[in-house]
């Protein structure tokens, strides 16, 4: 009896990805598989933080252009290529806000509000949802980013650490503190 090998292949995937990167470093025409693999993830990361869909697609294209331009600087550290792309996406996103004098948007679902209220061990009533909604608007940007990644985008601490360029443990501690701060605002 053996387990289907395709189900346990994350290391294989990383190695395959490294091969794509090395080929793309030599010739940008080879960047295609990386673009195909990560386009949606990066688009969703950007669109989660802005209002305008078309602009989000434009910024996504900009991210991949920047990635191709700087690919020769990329160093493989055993983490998915997406971490590097997310860091470029973050920088391009904030540049886009500055260029367009647009405001940062947070998109969330009632389900997320309920989950957070559960975390605070409160009833997920309409009143509490409305209260939490207001509290989120008051949260500092750094804390908002962590809450957004952890609770609205459901990222692992490992992934948050990779995107923010901090350790997994640090991401855990920072997310916990951000949640505590939000809880304090909520309870007041």
């Amino acid at each position, binding site marked *: 009896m*053996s387990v289907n090998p395709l*189900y346990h292949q994350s290391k294989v995937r990383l190695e395959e990805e490294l091969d794509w990167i090395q080929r793309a470093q030599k010739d940008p025409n080879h960047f295609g*598989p990386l673009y195909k693999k990560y386009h*949606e993830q990066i688009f969703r990361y950007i669109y989660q933080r802005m209002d305008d869909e078309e602009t989000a697609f434009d910024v996504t294209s900009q991210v991949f*252009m920047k990635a*191709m331009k700087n690919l020769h600087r990329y160093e493989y550290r055993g983490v998915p290529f997406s971490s590097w792309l997310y860091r470029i996406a973050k920088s391009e996103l904030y540049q886009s806000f500055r260029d367009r004098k647009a405001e940062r948007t*947070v998109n969330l679902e009632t389900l997320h509000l309920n989950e957070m209220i559960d975390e605070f061990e409160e009833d997920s009533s309409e009143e509490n949802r409305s209260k939490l*909604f207001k509290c989120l608007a008051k949260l500092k940007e750094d804390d908002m980013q962590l809450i957004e990644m952890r609770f609205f985008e*459901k990222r692992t601490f490992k992934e948050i650490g990779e995107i923010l360029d901090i350790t997994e443990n640090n991401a855990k501690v920072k997310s916990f503190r951000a949640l505590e701060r939000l809880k304090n605002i909520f309870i007041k």
Partner: protein
Amino acid sequence: MKTRKINLDRTPIESEYVQSKQNFDHVLSNYKAIKPTLWKNPWFYGPIGLASIALVVALSIGGNENEPSKAVTEIPVVEFPEDTKCIHPILEKEDVAFEVFQVDPLNDEKLQLKSGTTIEIPKGSLEAKKTEENVTVKVREFKTKAESFVAGIPMDYGSDKAFESAGMIEIRGFQDGKTVVISPEKPIEISLSLSQNSNGFGFWKLNEDSKEWIKYPTIVSDFENKGIDNTTKISNFKKNKVDEEIIQINTKIDQLEEPQKSDYMLANKGGQVFDIDFKPSDYPELEKLKGVEFEVDSKVKYDKNFTKKTWNTVDLTKSGNQYLVKFTNAKEEIQLPVRPVLTGARKEKAEIEFQKVFDTYNETKNELISEKEKLEKSKKEQQAKFDQIVHDAKQMMKADSKKEELNAIKKIDFRLLAWGVYNCDKPISYPKPLAKELAFLYENNADINLSAIYVFDGDKNVRYSFGEATRHSLTEFGFNLKHKTTLIAIDKEGEISYVKDVDSQNLDLGRIKFKRIQEKDVNLNYIEKLINESTLDT
């Protein structure tokens, strides 16, 4: 960035739509356009650049002029990996079977599944290359934990939740081994039968590239949302318009200037007026107004009994445009700001004029106030009507949902625009890691070299996964001690073992003993029995 906008429940974007926007050629051509030309690169003027020039010059001098240069540009073919899907059966020889249908793309077709699920494929929905040939539609449903486990459907949501499923379907369409596109104009309509009522459950589509579940609209929720949204918008629109008109009227009222008696040189009601002698030559403007008197400025605080006192001198002076009267005697001196007021016939004439203007002012003001009152009344009526509509709609929805509950209609309807896996689920938090460190052993006390452990919660239709190729490491392993739980472990050699209804005594001893499953026994039915469930059909 100073401001932040928060949107709640924005309509999700379909994965297929995002993928349709992919355009690598465009990105590549833009990249090439922004890439600096060779001589604009800083390194060009460095040692490498100079060496390159020298080499080119040397080759051009030394090379054979008769031999044509061979500029070979090799454009590599980008090959995508064949398998980018994320559904891989856990067991090599066991999977959940598909029901296979042959569908005529030129006719309306209705497929009825064994579970009660119906699939309506309208004519023209399947954009098959060969319209005269049938399209093969393969469908399978995962009603139990065992089925989704055996099929290898990822059931994690986000980083700390797993899905409790009420029903899941996988549907694909092919012709000649190639996927057939579904026309966005004529989507397939699916009425998915569920194992329990969908109240409190969401609906999701599996993104097979990212292994993430993405929210997907259902026909009912779509309708409900649009209905309420439109009513709210209409109401808000009207409300805003009325509010704007009220604001405009208030501004007009504020801007109306009440005529002042002082502008007509008339004394105010209750104002203290007195007559004094002054040199007409000093104030020629007052000399014209025969019999002019003076009224003390009402804003000034002063002793009103000053007229009863005896004054040695009373002098009129002027500071700028302000007239002042100074009263002096041996003991004191007071100075009061005053204004001239008319008397006699002039006063009467001025009063008639003032009254006319005052009446017009009053009339205009009253008209505006009455208009404002009408708008406020209409606003109240509109609000009441809107509240009633919302109330009625809510009552209707409540009644409908009650009716549905009574009729026990366990189904959910949605429109299919792309093949894939669709799921009616509720995210459940992962259990907390067990505080105690545990040894995982086989029955003969040999250590298990674990690859993964799957926890099947007997009280909920949910599976938690720990170990390799899952989102939770083995150190995070845990389960709800109050629930009836079955564990299935896979070791690094691929051997499968289990613990049925985990005994808390084992936990107290700090170990869990797994029983090996014989290879011949490993099938869907066996797993179903292990985790105390049976399919809906049985």
